[in-house]
């Protein structure tokens, strides 16, 4: 089996509706993106209603799911529990920025997204993810050191400040 350095899957979701915009998993897709998008938006809504801060990550017994967002979209990456979240967070941010730019440009043109975006974005996602996997394989976890500052930002978010 291919060494993915803990990467399981990636989903890009419309922030308000939960409609999936794009997703990427190695091999054949196992996740129902529509269900996943709805579930995530509901979970975020609950966190907001209960005033317990923003949903930035959650865990299952086998995976860590990290979430980031921008104006129009939410990006979620699933990695194994053994992987270092810090090593994947910058990749998720990069992907999120790409997807946001694409999504907004398509929204401006009033084009129904779905398949169009998938065609454009999936090869780009694959390139970014594979690059990170290669980096992790080459440098072990050294390049994740610079993530300390994001950990500080996470602490501020966790404290309800950001």
């Amino acid at each position, binding site marked *: 089996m291919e060494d993915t350095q803990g990467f399981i899957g990636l989903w890009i979701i419309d922030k308000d509706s939960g409609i999936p915009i794009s997703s990427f998993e190695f091999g054949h897709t196992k996740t129902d993106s529509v269900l996943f998008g709805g579930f995530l938006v509901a979970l975020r809504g609950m966190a907001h209603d209960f005033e317990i801060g923003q949903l930035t990550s959650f865990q299952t017994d086998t995976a860590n799911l990290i979430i980031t967002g921008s104006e129009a979209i939410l990006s979620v990456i699933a990695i194994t529990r053994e992987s270092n979240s810090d090593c994947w967070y910058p990749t998720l941010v990069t992907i999120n920025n790409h997807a946001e730019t694409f999504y907004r440009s398509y929204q401006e043109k009033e084009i129904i997204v779905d398949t169009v975006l998938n065609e454009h974005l999936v090869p780009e996602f694959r390139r970014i993810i594979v690059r990170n996997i290669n980096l992790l394989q080459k440098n072990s976890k050294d390049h994740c050191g*610079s*993530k300390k*500052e994001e950990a*500080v930002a996470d*602490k501020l978010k966790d404290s309800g400040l950001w």
Partner: protein
Amino acid sequence: MMITKILLIQQQVSEIPPLALIAEGTALLVYTYLTLKLSSKWRSTRKDATRNLFLSFAFYFLAVLMLFSTKTTNFLTGDQIDISSLGINVGYAFSLLGNIFLYYFTEDIFFDDDNRVTYLKDVITLANGITLGFLMIFIFQLQSAPFLEVPGEYISTHLLIWHVLVSTVGFLILFVKAFQATIKANTRVSRGGFLMISLTAIFEILVFVFFFLDRFSGAGYTYWYFIAWMTASVAGLSSMIGYLMPSWFRRLLGGS
């Protein structure tokens, strides 16, 4: 017209310019808003870092409130009730308590177990505790040599220098850590937030420096006094942006 007349009469009687009350009142509004926002953040999250930041700004708010209320009393009553010197000492006492909790917040957020400086928290608490102890002497009217150098002065010069130095150390640590985070941050939003926090630390240092300069720039209200209060309000505004990250600031930097 009538209000202007009353203000001018009161200024002559009390020797306090109305502009001083406006400067302090503006800062009071900023710190009241900030304290209320932080209190609601703390109530909803119950995190240590948020509590420490809230306590820090609550004490800064009390310091400003103390100074504003005693100065207003002096202004309105002429020199019949001279309690602004008491207000200054109590205000300094509250501000140093604010500094202590701001340093605790700095440790909570910017330090990990592997890079925490052993005993620094205790040293900063102790250094501020010493200032508080001496301020108590002044507050309870137990002034005596060598603490009070000039008869009739309202605060010890030695104590003021010590307070400025101790405060600067705490703020400098916050500035260095926040500035490092600014340089290394990956997103524009994080970079902007950290930059505002580092600017806050600089503004806070400047507030103490400007008050210090005012103290040595002759009698009465020098322009340093007004610059100090203006900087205090600006520090409050940059804190609001840096710590609370309002949505307009996030949007400005292209975030969600």
